[in-house]
């Protein structure tokens, strides 16, 4: 089978950026037979440590391989980093998904957005370990690409980035949860879901299927602590009555409900037990939650 031609041609000596890997240099383009098919491979060496990567030319576009950014593009990145952007999503799940997408796509703008977004978030509270690692990876990729694009050392590239993120003579500002809360509220208005959502469950509970709840509970075990902290606005709402049922996070509630049409509520509110367990404090184990949603054989026998 013949290879289809790639959208942009790569030659030996070209510098490219492999998403999540960093800057590479093409050192060979040759044809090999793999499983009876003749494929053209682009071999490249990662500049950081010399690791070799081989990519079939047909996959070059789909994996997001791209040429090194130009000076103009790097200049735009500095402008973006300098801007007074305080967009930081407090919904950890949404944030994680967006950041992973940005990293996978591998664009320079995406890397800058991850770095900027997490830096702004860290002004509210320390980042959890996974996000701290993500921040470090994104910063590493950003620094190495800026250094390669501008032909400067990594030390100069990182200092150039930090000069705009943390200008000399200034401390990074401390932020409050209220500043961030304004963003999701605005989004909710745009979606025009606010009124409908409140009428769905009646008491604001999550109405997910049991499987989804169990998965979410498992995923949120590590994150629950950090998500519960910025909840003061929710405390204000708790004065109205039911604080213990709203620990899943307002952002989470929004995402969960936006998936479903408004006609669904009648069916779903019939699972109050599972919903309560899904919103239990972080100390609870996910197994308990699953077993609560599905009664064990022993308990069903006792009922008989």
């Amino acid at each position, binding site marked *: 089978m013949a290879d289809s031609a790639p959208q942009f041609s790569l030659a030996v000596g070209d510098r490219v950026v492999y998403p999540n890997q960093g800057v590479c240099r093409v050192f060979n383009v040759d044809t090999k037979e793999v499983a009876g098919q003749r494929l053209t491979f682009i071999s490249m060496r990662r500049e950081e440590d010399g690791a070799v990567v081989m990519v079939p030319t047909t996959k070059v576009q789909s994996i997001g391989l791209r040429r090194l950014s130009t000076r103009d593009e790097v200049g735009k990145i*500095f402008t973006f980093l300098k801007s007074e952007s305080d967009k930081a999503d407090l919904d950890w799940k949404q944030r994680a998904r967006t950041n992973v997408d940005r990293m996978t796509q591998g664009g320079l703008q995406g890397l800058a957005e991850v770095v900027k977004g997490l830096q702004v978030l860290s002004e509210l509270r320390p980042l959890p370990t996974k996000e701290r690692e993500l921040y470090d990876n994104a910063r590493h990729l950003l620094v190495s690409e800026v250094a390669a694009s501008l032909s400067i*050392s990594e030390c100069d590239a990182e200092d*150039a980035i930090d*000069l*705009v993120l943390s200008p000399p003579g200034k401390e*990074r500002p401390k932020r409050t949860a209220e500043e961030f809360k304004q963003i999701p509220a605005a989004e909710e208005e745009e979606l025009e879901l606010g009124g409908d959502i409140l009428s769905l469950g009646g008491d604001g509970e999550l109405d997910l299927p049991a499987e989804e709840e169990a998965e979410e509970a498992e995923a949120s075990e590590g994150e629950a602590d950090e998500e519960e902290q910025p909840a003061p606005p929710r405390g204000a709402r708790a004065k109205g009555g039911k604080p213990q049922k709203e620990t899943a996070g307002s952002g989470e509630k929004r995402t969960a409900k936006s998936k479903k049409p408004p006609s669904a509520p009648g069916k779903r509110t019939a699972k109050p037990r599972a919903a309560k367990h899904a919103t239990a404090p972080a100390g609870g184990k996910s197994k308990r939650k699953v077993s609560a949603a599905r009664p064990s054989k022993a308990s069903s026998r006792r009922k008989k």
Partner: protein
Amino acid sequence: MIRVVTSEGYDPQEIQRLCRSLYTAFGVGCESAGQVPLPAGLGDPLDARKLIEQVQPVRAYADDKLLYLTGKKLKDRELPSGTAPTLGYALYGKDRALVSTHGVKNWEEGLRRVARHSLHQLGHLWDLYHCLDPRCSMYPPWTPSFANGDAIFCSFCREKSEQKIRLAKS
């Protein structure tokens, strides 16, 4: 092993105290490796980039890290996004770092600042990037609070440096 190389005459006891701070932070041996002259023609203040490239090497093993100390002022670097105040310089992931002790009159008081800057630049040699925690030595060094902090790493940077050192040993 971290080897501290000086360009002027420093009190050996001061260097020993600095070495102790570095040993505490990284958990690898640290010792003084003597004195080397500064390369000629670097101007005043010194150009950190040229200095680190042209400075005379000292005898060391492949995985040793060299920390050059100079009492001279370093020239601020002109970068694409502005002018960076320069108190040190490092070759990321390589073996050389430079720290200026310019402005430190009294080592009793200034040691903490020098140790913090040294930790910062040596951290870059083990692939550490700037940190978000103001207490960590990898925080951007031109912030007002940097000089007042202790010569310590945050838990993330400490673990990462330990991991890098373990990898280098193996």
